[in-house]
């Protein structure tokens, strides 16, 4: 059971890492949108 929990935690961390790393390349566009809606 603890092993399963560890695996699940690692998988969740992997997904957060991949999605975050993917979004980095869109930083200028994301910042432009946030600026446009007044959040930055």
């Amino acid at each position, binding site marked *: 059971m603890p092993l399963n929990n560890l695996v699940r935690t690692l*998988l969740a961390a*992997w997904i957060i890492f991949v999605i975050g790393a993917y979004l980095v*390349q869109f930083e200028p566009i994301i910042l432009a949108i946030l600026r446009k809606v007044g959040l930055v």
Partner: protein
Amino acid sequence: MIAAFVCALQLLACLGYGGLVLRFTDCQSTLRADEQIAWALGLGSGIIGWLVFFLGIGSLFHETAFLVLLVVGACGCVVIKDAVVTCGRDVLAWQPDRREIFCLGVIGVVAGLFLAGAVVPPTDADSLAYHFHLPKHFMSLGHLEFIPRAADGAVPMLAQMAYLPVYGLGGEMGLTLWVAANGAIAAFLLFTLCRRYLSTTWSMLVTLLFITVPAFVYGAGSGQVEVRISIFVMIAAFSLAAAIETGMLRYAVLCGIAVGFFMGSKYTGLLFALSCGIVILMQKRWLIHGLVLTVVAVLIGSQWYIWNAIHTGDPVFPMLFDALRDTVNYRHWDAQQNRLFVDQFLTSERIFETTIADFFRYPVAATFLDLEGLEASRTGLGPFGFVAMPFAVFFLWTSRDGFEKNALFIVTALSLVFICVWFFAGSPQRVRHLLPIYPVLLLAISMMAYRGASIVSSSVILASGIIATLLIQVGGTMFFSFSTIKDLIHGTQRAQFFSARVTNYAPVQWINESLKPAGRVYIEQRELAYLIEAPVFVGHGVTQNLIRAHDRNVDPLKLRKQLLNQGITHLFLPTSRLRELPFSELVTTGCIKELKVFESETRQSRTLASNNLKTGQTGRYSVAALLGKTC
């Protein structure tokens, strides 16, 4: 309205022609009703492109011939009507649960965005330069014409041939609706294939992942051929798997037809044919299957290679220049031009070395780094491959025994062989060039991840990853469509629409109003080719050798002769080019007369069209007349 009718007629013709292919190859009865419809639509679009080539050879590019072609095809629907009826009944009897309704809703929103993109004029640069321009040009001529330009002229154009009937009968909107319909065929085909292995909800999720990847969003609504080729790849891959699984020759025939369509649509089809050949040899009936696949693929896919060979002696003009230069009379090419083409064009498309280390670096860069030349962010394949990877690895680790008997193993092997062949052959490395193989890989990795997640009780975590990916991708699709929808709501006029998106549209309007259509305009900004009503010559320093205007050392009188030989009457160039050699000499001697100068603003983005008007860089462009006799 006529455009929508013509598009629907061409879809019916696809269904008919494709249905006939399934019937004659005896594959129809082995497919489910929805699969029969999807496969028939995909095969039919290839058949139409294949047949239109022969209409072009016979100077039959006119409305009557297209109408006959489509009506005859539509009559073929009788062979597939049972599948349509069964599928209709299944849809009416379907009682979707909440998750399916939600997925259906998201698919509906995305489809609506694609439809919005299909009812506005095309603005993608490559489409305006040749995907749409050449069919328009051939239609105006009434026949096919050989274009001696590497990379975007003397290339296989089976997919673009299918644009001609819809353009000829339905005009520009017929064309844009058709390319959107092609995207829908690709999505539907993937959905039906997914249903072999996954539940309806998961099949819809995988389809959503496919239709919202940047490469699809970019390509499906434009004239780019990758989305259309993905249809042929899906049919070829699963026919190949069926041929190997069952040992039946009919699947090798079907695979050969689909491979032929890919070969006829893009040079990389040759690499795909090689990959299919390698995979089909790894089985008991390798000889007969390999022979049948090869013969059928060559019969179907060789028309454009023969066309090139007849006009230049080189079937893949100008790729075999170094090998054939001593035996073939290259009228449109020479050693100097070939050096330029290899050094400046082919090399610029190759960001990574063809080494083992770079082969493994490529997918990481193609997903996470926005390297110039790969175009991974704007036209990439999204993060799902990496999201699903550990789940798929779990599946492969725990269930590897017996997986090699699965059809998905064969299509995965085919995809990987193709990627290896594609990479090590030194092909252009833009990520979107892998879109044709992506749905097959996506289906395989999704199935493996789905099973892998169940093994480690992590289905919720995988689903979260898919939802996060979809949030990004659907958001990107909405962002891409935002300016188009804004223009649709405001009822923006055609001229305003182009003005905001295409650099130098004002001079195009002036040229269309002022110049006689009998003339021919020399341009170097290739996306204007579709927009200028008069015939155009697209000058390029690297991909063509008929007019060497980029060479500052060329003799001005020789350049003038080259321009006159091509029937050029006017030029549209940056004003600074007319002040430099070799043009300046022709201006000084009175052979070129400047007619009008335009202040021009660069349009850097279609997606951020409203920003273009505020931040465009300025430059000056001139329209000039080339005087034929008096200079």
